[in-house]
């Protein structure tokens, strides 16, 4: 009996640790369904809207839509996965004047505050880092839910030159406009009901 006591004690310690860990992670993590999710961007080349996509990205979404204040959203985008659908342009994107993926393989977003504005809409404030340059911004997100999945959509506009995307001769905004619209649709499983 005395031999079993340390084992029993160890088991109790593990159980306690697990319980406290569960209590600490107030917000359950939602899972990203990468195949159905999209992150795209639209720039203007001499007035012509040109659409691009990021094919690889990951997200950690831990928030309860009913009390969003305590939640967090983090996103990492693999910049080498960017495509404009034209091989000649795609060959240029990873180079230093554009995304410089050798030095900056990932862009990221980290939320600092989430606020509900009603009707499944949320304002997510946070820091967006692209090519080593960080900007504060507020991203409006709309969440819709079906039986087993939630879809978070939204768009926002950034200035590419604030992130030094398009350097040298490409800083000319009459060629490629400064404003770039980012559009996203993230399909999630495991998000709590709205």
């Amino acid at each position: 009996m005395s031999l079993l006591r340390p084992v029993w004690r160890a088991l109790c310690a593990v159980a306690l640790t697990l319980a406290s860990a569960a209590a600490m992670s107030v917000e359950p993590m939602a899972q990203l369904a990468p195949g159905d999710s999209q992150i795209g961007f639209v720039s203007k080349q001499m007035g012509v809207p040109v659409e691009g996509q990021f094919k690889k990205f990951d997200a950690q979404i831990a928030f309860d839509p009913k009390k969003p204040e305590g939640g967090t959203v983090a996103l990492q985008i693999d910049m080498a996965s960017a495509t404009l659908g034209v091989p000649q342009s795609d060959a240029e994107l990873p180079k230093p004047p554009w995304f410089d993926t050798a030095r900056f393989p990932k862009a990221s977003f980290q939320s600092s505050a989430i606020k509900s504005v009603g009707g499944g809409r949320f304002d997510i404030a946070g820091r967006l880092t692209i090519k080593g340059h960080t900007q504060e911004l507020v991203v409006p997100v709309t969440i819709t839910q079906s039986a087993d999945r939630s879809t978070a959509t939204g768009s926002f506009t950034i200035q590419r030159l604030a992130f030094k995307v398009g350097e040298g001769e490409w800083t000319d905004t009459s060629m490629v406009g400064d404003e770039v619209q980012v559009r996203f649709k993230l399909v999630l499983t495991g998000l709590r009901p709205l």
Partner: protein
Amino acid sequence: MTLHWLLALMIVGSLSVGLYMTGLPFSPQRLKLVNWHKWAGITILGLTALRLLWRLSHPPPPLPPCIVEAMPGWQLVAHRGTHLLMYLLFFAVPLAGWAYSSALGFPIVWFGVVPLPDFVPVNKEFAEAVLKPLHHGAAYVLGAVVLLHAVAALKHHFVDHDGLLDRMWPFSHQGHAR
């Protein structure tokens, strides 16, 4: 006649820019030229339509009888054929280029201001396999026919000395208002 020379300049210019830009590497220069080329092509298309309407309501004067008599039959056939083919290609080349751009997923925004509709859906394989060779091939034929047209006109002037060019020459006092 003003339209003839304006279009002549624009068509020769667009053919040259088209030929030059396809060899350029990815650069602002190339982007600029590609867009100018597209804008010029659409402008040529519109002006050609205007010119055709004008010609239908104001037929050009027939060839002077002395010139017709001096020309062998095959030249008269070539004369008609060249003009017909040129008009056909004035429409076909820009339209194929427009379709090629649309199918690649780059709608044309005329002078960066007026977005034009896409009359073919985005389909990159179709663009590369069909529309690109169609646009390029038709443009080469147009270049050849325009050259033939110019050489024939110069031959009438410098070899035959028949004064045919006078009626098209913008600085000639004999020129017909056309």
